């Protein structure tokens, strides 16, 4: 979320205990809310935490599950790689060339607002019904925010840094390595946090729409067959995964901002 760098940083010792307490309270709160909702709505409709965990174990025990997990992981990994590399590359170019950036910025934002899910048929028609289509789904969701964040990071490099590069007579390579990249990394990482979540979402949606394998497909089956325990189990799995990575990236982000 928003990082307020201007605030004086409390000593590390102060920050830790309160944040652990907060997390514990949060988790307890969520579990409580979940259990209460389950009782209120009926456990067949909304399975409680315990039931969901048992179901998750059962899913993992299923011999086919591994293959589904592998399929999704493979597609997601590829999509993430392309979205990150492509997004950062595009963002760097558009950030460095002022005119290009000005021209493309509203176009990128417009593309971002399209319900990409409505474009899925086109992707399927162009890529066919295989893993490359899934990768494409993931990429189109994640690449734009990463590009936009990177572009903004480059454009917002303080002019005094550029002048410092020249005042120190650094070569372009030295300037990029020692000043430009360290200056832009924090904001690029912020873009990566969002890009990660969205790429995952895109890959899953692709599997939900048009695939016979993968976690997304299992999810869609469960929805069609109205199988709440499986829906909850898979949703929980995805949620835990995304949260874990999100926290890790958040930590890295904070570390970079000193």
């Amino acid at each position, binding site marked *: 979320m928003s990082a307020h760098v201007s605030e004086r940083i409390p000593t590390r010792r102060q920050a830790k205990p309160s944040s652990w307490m907060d997390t514990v309270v949060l988790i307890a709160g969520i579990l409580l809310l979940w259990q209460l909702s389950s009782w209120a709505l009926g456990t067949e409709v909304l399975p409680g935490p315990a039931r969901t965990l048992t179901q998750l174990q059962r899913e993992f025990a299923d011999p086919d599950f591994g293959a589904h997990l592998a399929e999704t992981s493979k597609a997601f990994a590829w999509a993430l790689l392309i979205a990150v590399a492509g997004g950062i590359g595009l963002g760097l170019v558009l950030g460095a060339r002022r005119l290009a950036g000005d021209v493309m910025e509203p176009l990128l934002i417009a593309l971002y607002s399209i319900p990409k899910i409505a474009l*899925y048929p086109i992707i399927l028609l162009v890529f066919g019904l295989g893993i490359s289509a899934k990768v494409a789904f993931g990429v189109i969701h994640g690449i734009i925010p990463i590009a936009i964040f990177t572009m903004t990071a480059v454009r917002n490099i303080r002019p005094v840094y550029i002048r410092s590069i020249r005042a120190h007579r650094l070569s372009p390579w030295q300037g990029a390595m020692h000043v430009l990249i360290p200056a832009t990394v924090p904001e690029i990482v912020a873009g990566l946090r969002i890009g990660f979540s969205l790429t995952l979402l895109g890959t899953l949606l692709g599997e939900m729409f048009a695939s016979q394998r993968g976690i997304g497909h299992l999810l869609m089956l469960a929805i069609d067959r109205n199988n709440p325990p499986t829906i909850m189990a898979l949703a929980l799995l995805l949620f835990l995964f995304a949260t874990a990575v999100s926290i890790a990236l958040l930590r890295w982000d904070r570390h970079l901002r000193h």
Partner: protein
Amino acid sequence: MANTMPSNDALSKRGRVMGPRRYRVALLRSIVVLLSIALLEVASRQAWIDPISFIPPSEMALSAWTLLTDGAYREDMMLTLSSATASILMATSAGFLFGLALFKLPRLRRVLDPLLLSYYAVPIFVLYPLLIVLFGLNRWPLIMLGFLFAIIAMAVNTLNGLERVPQVLLRTARVLRMGKTREALLITLPASLPFVFTGIKLAIVYSFIAVIGGEFLLSGAGLGYQIAFAYNNFDNATMYGLMFLLLTFIGAINLVLHAVEHSLYQRRVIKEAV
């Protein structure tokens, strides 16, 4: 996604691109768009891409026009529009209040921080069966999908806006002995308006995305559903026509929001001294 769009920071830092350069930029942009469409047109007609899978944009436009004038899909379009509108109204009001709450309770906010990003990683559509149970087999599950998808973006941006009201303005309010409500109405709200507007913009965008996406995957009516239906029936002409209408519609909304946002920022945000 939940964050403020980074471009808004860029806007407030650089201000509006002024003068003759603005026209050059707009011109180049139009050229880029037209060239891309032209390229797709040629690619399709020359069969560089399979012309059955991807029909030329001109035919898409033609199909779109036919569908629009026929009126066959008018009901579906109205359905989608009404559901999205309901979602937007609910998400902006509740989202604003939620953002306000987060502002007043910083502890809550700190605690919820990491969750807000994983919120967007799980397809919100998994809640659909639950929502059907809660609301019945009507449009409400879809509206609620839109609501849940959009509310966070609105809340986060409201929060951002409230946080960015310069302290000195609030102290001025106290010196002038303004009451809490007057301060909120006359100072806090106007000062945070650009960010709140960003939240509204995102709430609109996300509501459409969730509603149309939901129709696409799960529902039996609406524009999204008709696109999926056409796809499943190999009716590419209709499918592309409907997609074209959708894109044009979203594009138009975007332009309007963009223009309003630009003028808001021009007058309301003090640009940093160059």
